[in-house]
């Protein structure tokens, strides 16, 4: 007898459309933090009102009926929603495995107790504003105290302590300290996730993309740490795809297994799909989840291979990476049907290598990093979008 197969790899991209096994509810765009690398849309403040509790519960029931089973609750900061416990309770009753993705801000003893009682399965504590928190940690100030308390609560309530830290040029040289901080927090699993360049992160890409040398040093530091804590902690290091020669199989193909619902009810085949032009994303206010998933033009738009252009169309790897990320193709080339330019087979791969080359220069000269100003995610900067392209193309 053999073991199981990874579900993600077992799902065919086409023609039989499988169920949306992975459901992500972005419960709110409200957030107490202002991270420069947030993937939320830069115009989030213009979106309509958030779904009501009753709407979210209906979405849960409809998605579960289709076979959705992994549930992510994120945002924004999901703890801002006062009905989070009610949403978790309903999801638990329906048989979802429930992951809360949180900064920990607002995770009091009373709330974690209520969430546990409601059936929450897992908590991923994110170090959101890691530049400031890093500084706070080094100087033992307030934010680190808050994170320590939250981490202790997570462990006390019997959850594995899973920490996610987003890396970028401004903090990647501190990986050893970040890992020491994770150890001090009692983390059992640490995900060092390099920034992915969408939303606010795209806008700040020129300041955030690390150099190859920084990346190599960070990987080496991570490896040394792994050896020291072997058996006690597991560390995952996610390389930024700009440094790869093949694209990621984004969402295992859009419309394959993943369904995200934005705070205002817009249904999306990936977290960032809201930016894609000509994709008339349906709303759960107007249609049920079954109709949205199986019948809407938006969710069928990138299923199968008919939409692909060369070099993907005739590439033997198209069944493995599905042409990469549609949002990245759009952001970098202006056309979401193009090959993800991370792929070295893309005729526009130079757009990626040029960004990496600029990062090399930016990382070498501290003055270069000050030429442009980081834009912190907040309600005020979200309304007038000054430069949509973040100065990315030259």
């Amino acid at each position, binding site marked *: *007898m053999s073991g199981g*197969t990874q*579900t993600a790899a077992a799902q065919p991209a086409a023609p039989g459309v499988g169920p949306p096994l992975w459901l992500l509810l972005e419960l709110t765009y409200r957030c107490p933090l202002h991270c420069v690398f947030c993937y939320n849309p830069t115009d989030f403040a213009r979106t309509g009102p958030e779904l009501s509790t009753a709407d979210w519960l209906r979405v849960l029931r409809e998605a579960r009926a289709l*076979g959705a*089973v*992994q549930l992510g609750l994120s945002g924004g900061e999901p703890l801002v929603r006062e009905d989070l416990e009610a949403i978790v309770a309903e999801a638990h009753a329906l048989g979802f495995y429930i992951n809360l993705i949180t900064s920990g801000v607002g995770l009091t003893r009373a709330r974690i107790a209520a969430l546990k009682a409601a059936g929450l399965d897992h908590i*991923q504590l994110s170090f959101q504003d890691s530049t400031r928190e890093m500084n706070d940690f080094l100087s033992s100030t307030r934010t680190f105290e808050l994170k320590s308390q939250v981490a202790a609560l997570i462990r006390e309530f019997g959850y594995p302590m899973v920490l996610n830290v987003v890396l970028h040029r401004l903090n990647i040289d501190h990986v050893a300290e970040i890992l020491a901080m994770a150890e001090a927090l009692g983390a059992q699993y640490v995900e060092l996730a390099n920034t992915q360049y969408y939303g606010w992160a795209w806008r700040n890409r020129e300041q955030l993309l690390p150099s190859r040398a920084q990346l190599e040093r960070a990987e080496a530091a991570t490896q040394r740490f792994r050896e020291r804590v072997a058996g006690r902690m597991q560390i995952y290091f996610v390389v930024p795809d700009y440094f790869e020669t093949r694209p990621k199989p984004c969402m295992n193909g859009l419309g394959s297994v993943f369904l995200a619902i934005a705070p205002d009810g817009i249904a999306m085949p990936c977290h960032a799909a809201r930016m894609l032009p000509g994709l008339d994303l349906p709303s759960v206010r107007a249609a049920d989840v079954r109709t949205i998933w199986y019948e809407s033009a938006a969710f069928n738009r990138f299923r199968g291979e008919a939409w692909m252009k060369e070099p993907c169309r005739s590439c033997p790897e198209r069944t493995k990476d599905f042409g990469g990320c549609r949002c990245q193709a759009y952001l970098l080339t202006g056309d979401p049907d193009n090959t993800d330019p991370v792929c070295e087979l893309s005729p526009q791969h130079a757009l990626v290598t040029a960004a990496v080359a600029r990062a090399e220069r930016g990382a070498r000269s501290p003055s270069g990093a000050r030429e442009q100003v980081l834009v912190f995610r907040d309600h005020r900067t979200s309304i007038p979008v000054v430069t949509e392209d973040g100065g990315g193309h030259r």
Partner: protein
Amino acid sequence: MTELAETVKPAIAHGLKLQWEPAQDAHVLLYPEGMVKLNGSAGAIMSRCDGARTLADIVADLERSYGLTGLAADVRAFVALALQKRWLELRE
């Protein structure tokens, strides 16, 4: 790895969930931010790992349920693999 004793009591590891998913026509093991779709035999074994039954009980139950004999080595190998993957843990 040392040979598993017949008296060990495997259970689904803390924090994981095993359930039958009609939409996937399979037992699915759910863990933080991921899942594994189990094949028929893996599902049959895992669904009997309740922390109360011993390895010997599980083998006997499977042999009875499926009208087979000589499953012990296969079941033991799978349980060892699932322990290694931390899908299962041993209860006292």
